[in-house]
């Protein structure tokens, strides 16, 4: 321990607080917080987003700034959010939208035309990729989207750059008449580091600019704008040739590394003496500078997470570079991964095999919470032997044991239309059911429900209404009656909405009434046509952490059937007692919220409220 203490003493810097420029306060900030700060400092006036890990905190943090500074909103989906931001830009104010990588798929329709239009007030899109798929359905690389839309992509490495680059993005957007993408990754978005903040510069609103040839994309206008787009690309490229966003860090002539984003930090740690060209931009590339860099070293290696986007551009330029022959195309990078790449390149000696302690305790996958109201639907659906199309949300966790009741999960809002296709295929013999959460339903579930009724599909739709966007940590949406700033607003009336679409079989029931859920699902699946069931109970975590009187297991009544364990409730586990060779169960009263579902599935009067001995 003393050795470690000495080490920490030795590495304490002495000069960090000296110097006149360090008077301003350094604050620890998460990447997302810094992005929000950068946008605020840049004078953003309109900001809109739909929550999505790892991007959610950007809008949450923007909403912490006063309402007089900016309008910040949760939108119904990413396309709506982008269109709102585009509206802000049309109106001449600085605007921003933030989203996760797959959010850009939804918003891309608007982006592809908006890029032709350009901006009046600045337009910045912050897009957060998720290498390693910590909390997503895929690992797509946003940089290809930027290239497709011919939109410059800035690539910050740490929280300080996240702030600085976001700020700069607004200036670039207005200077070059282009939307700008700031690309983050999970690692950047969720890493806290010290940030030097500045003050807000209030941008003067320019007002709407009446320029039909620029603002209205009809073929005649679009043809002209496409040419302007190509010219813009060239101007941006020229700009990046001399921009500070591209940093040449001279080092060994033996090897030069071209890298960006968080990959840069691993390179600096593993191969500190290499020459490095740190790209703060991944499109369009400063070709002349890159050629100079490549000529200055004997060997060039590109280190980039996910796709060989830079590497391929360099190869098109005719440069001889290495990249994905050494580093993986999938997964998140780390010091280990980058070291391994340089080892296979022969630049580093092989790491001596460490004698690591390797104990593999049981897996601990994420679980539906104790008392999660989604549980009942999947208990019933599994018993009904249904074919279930799932959607995106916490309830996707019901795809694995013990609930194991979801057969498909594709993308936001896919469930209803997937079920429609399955039902209309004519090959499915089981009852076809779509399950979708409230926020996801409002995001992209309404058009497919209209479509299902329109095409007379024989499906049951279960709307799991837990009154919140739960998966991303409890954000409001149009069905909660509150907006991003917590102000009361109109609340969507699901029943009226669904009935107006033409749904004839509709029922709203309590998620915690297991019998009713079973019964209603059975009736709904027997109905020919579109049946909709709303299962209604608030999320146990948000907006209020629920806690009711706990239940307990009457050990003398427990037969170890473990039917209650099929709920997958984290409050229920084995006790030390056995009954006929099976573990009896116990309930962790601190974790139990008193939903009573386990008592409802227990068949031997084995689970009862904890504080009611007299009920026996």
């Amino acid at each position, binding site marked *: *321990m003393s050795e470690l203490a000495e080490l920490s003493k030795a590495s304490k810097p002495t000069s960090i607080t000296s110097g006149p420029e360090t008077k301003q306060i350094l604050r620890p900030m998460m990447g997302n917080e810094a992005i929000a700060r950068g946008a605020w400092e840049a004078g953003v006036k309109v900001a809109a987003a739909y929550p999505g890990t790892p991007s959610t905190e950007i809008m949450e943090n923007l909403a912490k700034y006063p309402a007089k500074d900016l309008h910040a909103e949760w939108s119904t989906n990413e396309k709506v959010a982008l269109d709102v931001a585009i509206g802000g830009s049309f109106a001449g104010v600085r605007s921003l939208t933030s989203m996760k990588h797959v959010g850009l798929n939804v918003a891309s329709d608007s982006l592809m035309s908006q890029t032709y239009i350009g901006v009046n007030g600045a337009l910045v899109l912050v897009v957060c990729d998720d290498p390693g798929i910590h909390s997503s359905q895929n690992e797509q690389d946003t940089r290809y989207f930027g290239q497709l839309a011919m939109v410059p992509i800035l690539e910050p490495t*740490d929280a300080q750059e996240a702030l600085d680059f976001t700020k700069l993005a607004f200036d670039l957007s207005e200077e070059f008449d282009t939307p700008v993408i700031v690309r983050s990754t999970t690692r950047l978005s969720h*890493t806290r580091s010290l940030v030097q903040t500045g003050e807000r510069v209030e941008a003067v609103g320019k007002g709407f600019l009446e320029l039909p040839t620029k603002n209205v994309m009809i073929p005649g206008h679009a043809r002209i704008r496409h040419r302007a787009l190509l010219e813009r690309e060239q101007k941006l490229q020229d700009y990046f040739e001399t921009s500070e966003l591209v940093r040449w860090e001279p080092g060994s002539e033996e090897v030069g590394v071209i890298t960006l984003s*968080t990959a840069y930090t691993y390179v600096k740690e593993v191969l500190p003496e290499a020459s490095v060209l740190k790209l703060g931009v991944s499109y369009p590339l400063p070709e002349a500078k890159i050629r100079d860099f490549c000529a200055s070293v004997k060997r060039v290696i590109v280190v980039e997470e996910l796709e060989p986007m830079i590497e391929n551009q360099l190869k098109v330029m005719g440069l001889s570079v290495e990249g994905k022959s050494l580093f993986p195309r999938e997964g998140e990078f780390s010091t280990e991964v980058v070291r391994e790449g340089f080892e296979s390149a022969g630049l580093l000696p092989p790491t001596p095999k460490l004698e*690591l302690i390797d104990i593999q305790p049981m897996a601990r996958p994420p*679980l539906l919470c104790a008392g999660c109201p989604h549980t009942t639907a999947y208990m019933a659906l599994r018993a009904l032997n249904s074919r279930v199309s799932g959607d995106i949300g916490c309830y996707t966790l019901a795809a694995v044991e013990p609930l194991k009741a979801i057969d498909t999960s594709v993308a936001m809002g896919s469930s209803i239309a997937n079920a429609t296709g399955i039902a209309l295929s004519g090959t499915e013999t089981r009852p076809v059911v779509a399950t979708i959460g409230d926020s996801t339903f409002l995001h992209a579930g309404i058009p497919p429900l209209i479509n299902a009724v329109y095409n007379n599909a024989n499906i049951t739709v279960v709307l799991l209404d837990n009154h919140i966007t739960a998966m991303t940590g409890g954000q409001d949406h149009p069905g909660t009656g509150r907006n991003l700033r917590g102000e009361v607003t109109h609340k969507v009336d699901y029943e009226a909405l669904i009935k107006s679409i033409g749904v004839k079989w509709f029922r709203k029931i309590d998620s915690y009434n297991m019998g009713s859920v079973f019964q209603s699902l059975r009736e709904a699946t027997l109905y020919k046509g579109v049946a909709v069931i709303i299962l209604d109970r608030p999320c146990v975590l948000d907006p209020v952490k629920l806690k009711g009187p706990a239940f307990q297991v009457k050990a003398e009544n427990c037969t170890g059937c473990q039917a209650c364990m099929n709920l997958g409730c984290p409050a229920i586990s*084995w006790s030390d007692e*056995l009954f006929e060779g099976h573990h009896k169960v116990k309930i962790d009263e601190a974790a139990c919220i008193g939903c009573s579902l386990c008592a409802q599935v227990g068949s031997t009067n084995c689970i009862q409220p904890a504080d009611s001995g007299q009920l026996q």
Partner: protein
Amino acid sequence: MSDSSQIQTEASQPLTNLQPVKVPINVLVVGVGGQGVIMISKVLAALCQQQGFQVKQSEVHGMAKRGGSVFSHVRYGEQVYSPTIPVGQADVLVALEWAEGLRWLPYLKPETGIFIADTQQIVPPFACRDRKHGARSGYAKESVADISELISNCFAADAGQMAAELGNAKAANTLLLGMLSTALDFPADDWKQVIAQFVPPKTVDINMEAFTQGRGWVERYDPAVLKGGKGHGKGLTESHAPHEVQFELPVITEAWCKSCDICVKFCPERCLSLNENRIAELTKPELCTLCRICERLCPDFAISLNYKN
């Protein structure tokens, strides 16, 4: 730049002039979602900043709240590049839950790494999935004594219990911070000052006490007490004698079944279903654990599990 085939041969020798960067201190904090992993690492990060270090703290959100495995990397030093700690490079591993600590042990520096753990066990339903007779829990079997034999710097205490004795079980994390404080060279008063900013104002006193308690516990720690100590499993991990199976698979008397479906709905393993004549049938006998629920629930006595022989 010369052509690549030539480079390959030239560069096949490792560059000898490359020096490692001055190594930052790595602290890995792990636990189960909702335990306070982020709070502990935030306190540490704030302290490191206050002491004039560059610091990076990296975590992953989203699944964290759902009772999954959670971790947070804290790195500090003169210059910190990578936000994450490589395998085998953690100077200190702080575990808020026993099995989570074991999961991340490979990240600890061999020989010198310090393991600080709460012996609290949070047993996930996943560890209780085996339905066979006499099945054992899948929870980690290693005891504190086992781990102390593997690593020289293992400090494991029931922090929750110790904090509860002080009067507030919620101060367990501060107690762990007290234990952590002995591994890093920051003055105790600076620790306390930072902790006071992070805990609810009303609980400052008890948290200060918990901090001191945790710090003192490590200083007084005597690994000898572990020698010959019992396994940590508290019965959960004890092996059970093989249980003799007394029953045969359920037998269904078709004539008595009235298709009520109760057995199908309530079978914990879902091994029953109604056949084309809507009569209950054991369609997945391999999943049956002989729990006898169907036998007990059948209103018509149509299902029975017979004793062997």
